């Protein structure tokens, strides 16, 4: 295997892994958009908030990690309930843009709240996930692969599988799909929208917690964590707002595209193309397929 090809392969693999991380964040967006038609801008901040809570309860109350996890999950569920009670319930039947703005407001509240409760300094998040390069890959294939990223990929696949089972096989999952299909029809067969919203925001909160922990162990828990939402947006439009496989595939495409562009195109234009390349890629793609890869075909009627 030539050196250049090995390097290319490394770039692609690290891109794939980064893509998995993006997909984790995008997944939360998709869940909420599917069930309630709300474009939840606060998802990134929810990741930050969840990770902050997870680290915070360990620091402040001295809980071990295995106890802090359920505590953080509990906080996210409580949060979902509060959001439904205080915000969503009052905004039923408003325009999508109004709901979108409400989630931006929510993002501000959570950001301030997280800082206020747990302090705004950078926190280390260490729950014993393996760090550094994988020796196995290095020895056998002469490739540099981060262990943490492999773990992230595995956890993400488990999460997606669990979500798939949850959506396809359980009673609640079926109700969620019904709501996603048609709010009114779901209401008329006796599904409570309010309960569904609490559930779906809780699930999104838990996904945010997982994403937050993964990103947090990669680069520490700090404010910039909330900005990964901006990274997840192109993933989202590429894959389609309503599709879970879309979020995964979109994440992988964006992750690889971004890394390859940074490495092979970056030097010619002065670097830092990572910031916008994903958006341009998604934009170019949308011009061909306006509803994204797996999005529902838009049928327009007067």
């Amino acid at each position, binding site marked *: 295997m030539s050196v250049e090809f090995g390097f290319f392969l490394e770039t692609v693999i690290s891109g794939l892994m980064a893509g998995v991380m993006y997909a984790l964040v995008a997944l939360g967006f998709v869940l909420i958009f599917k069930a309630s038609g709300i*474009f939840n801008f606060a998802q990134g901040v929810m990741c930050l908030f969840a990770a902050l809570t997870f680290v915070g309860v360990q620091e402040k109350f001295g809980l071990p990690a295995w106890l802090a996890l359920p505590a953080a999950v509990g906080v996210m569920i409580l949060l979902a309930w509060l959001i439904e009670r*205080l*915000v969503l319930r*009052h*905004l039923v039947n*408003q*325009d*999508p*843009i*109004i709901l*979108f*703005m*409400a989630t*931006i*407001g*929510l*993002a*501000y*509240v*959570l*950001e*301030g*709240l997280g*800082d*206020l409760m747990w302090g*705004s300094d950078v926190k280390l998040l260490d729950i014993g996930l393996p760090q550094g390069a994988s020796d196995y890959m290095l020895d056998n294939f002469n490739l540099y692969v981060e262990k943490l990223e492999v773990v992230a990929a595995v956890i993400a696949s488990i999460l997606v599988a669990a979500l798939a089972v949850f959506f396809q096989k359980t009673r609640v999952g079926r109700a969620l799909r019904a709501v996603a299909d048609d709010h009114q029809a779901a209401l008329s067969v006796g599904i409570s929208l309010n309960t569904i919203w609490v559930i779906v925001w809780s699930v999104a909160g838990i996904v945010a917690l997982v994403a937050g922990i993964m990103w947090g162990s990669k680069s520490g828990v700090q404010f910039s964590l909330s900005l990964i939402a*901006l990274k997840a*947006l*192109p993933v*989202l*439009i590429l894959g389609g*707002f309503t599709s879970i496989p879309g979020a995964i595939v979109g994440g992988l495409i964006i992750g690889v595209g971004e890394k390859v562009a940074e490495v092979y195109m970056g030097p010619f*234009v*002065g*670097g*830092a*193309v990572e*910031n*916008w390349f994903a*958006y*341009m890629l*998604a*934009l170019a793609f*949308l*011009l061909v397929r*306006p*509803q*994204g890869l797996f999005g529902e075909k*838009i049928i*327009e*009627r*007067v």
Partner: protein
Amino acid sequence: MFYRETGQFKTNYSDDRAIFPIAQDRYGIMILLAIAFFVIPFTVDDYWGNAIFLPLLIYALIAMGLNVLVGYCGQISLGTAAFMAVGSYASFKLMTSFPGLDFTIVVLMSGLITAVVGSLFGLPSLRIKGFYLAVATLAAQFFIIWLVNKVEWFYNYSATGQINAPERTALMFPVTGPNAPILYKYFFCLIIVVLAALVTKNIVRGRIGRQWMAIRDMDIAAELIGVRPLTTKLSAFAVSSFLIGMGGALYFGVWLGAAEPTEAFGIDQSFLILFMIIVGGLGTILGSFLGAAFLWLFPIAFKNFMVDSLGLSTAMSEHLQIILMGGLIIFFLIVEPHGLARLWQITKEKLRIWPFPH
């Protein structure tokens, strides 16, 4: 009682089509303008001018620009700050390349350049709709900021990567640079903003504005009755970017005086302006002004109150401020999704019959 139009008869069509058909409105706006032109400039000091009135006017102008696009034409844009940056850098390049050029012309040309760039980034709107478009406009945000950061020509190869406004005059009055008196700056901005508001108001109630609103309300139906989506959407992008570009030129040239791309034109700016029009009222000119005033004045007042009166630390008050800000936005959306402009309308309706119940 205070707001009755009883007895105000219109005897010709042009009276009927006036911007303010009701006498009370006309007098009200005249009084406001009189205060803005003759009272404020001669009573405020440097601090009030620089910290309150200048940003207020400039943000109102930019919010108006965004309102054309989002409120009137229904195309959500999250790239406002990038278009402000285009206006700023255009004005900077014009000022440094043509030192003798009048600043009025610089502002207008910056607006035109931004309009061209804006229309370019508006092209995807012909294919993409709704939130897909909103995210696509983020491409403009990140790409343009990256571009002005990377290409040294944009900031004249200066070592810091910053741009600084040189001293320029508008009709012989110095308005930019560190030594320009606040009085001139204020008048310059005020005149531009008032003229822009007048022109925009007339555009949105005319043929083009009605086309925008038709596209906003239902684009397919609009297309079927003969509104061209291409020209309509692109004209909305062009007019909106023109206003935002002028605002950007004023923002950098007159108000800030120096700008650094990632700070002055970050995505937070885009959101701030979007909040302004949502809180002020989508699809109203008045709303742009009210929203800008509210979102600019409230944090200042709140900070002063928290730090000076309650003696909290700045960091603490910042956290509280951001929470309160988010809470207020949610509160506003729940209580009055149509914004402050709608509240004013309700007040007017109430005043019309007050104090009688019917």
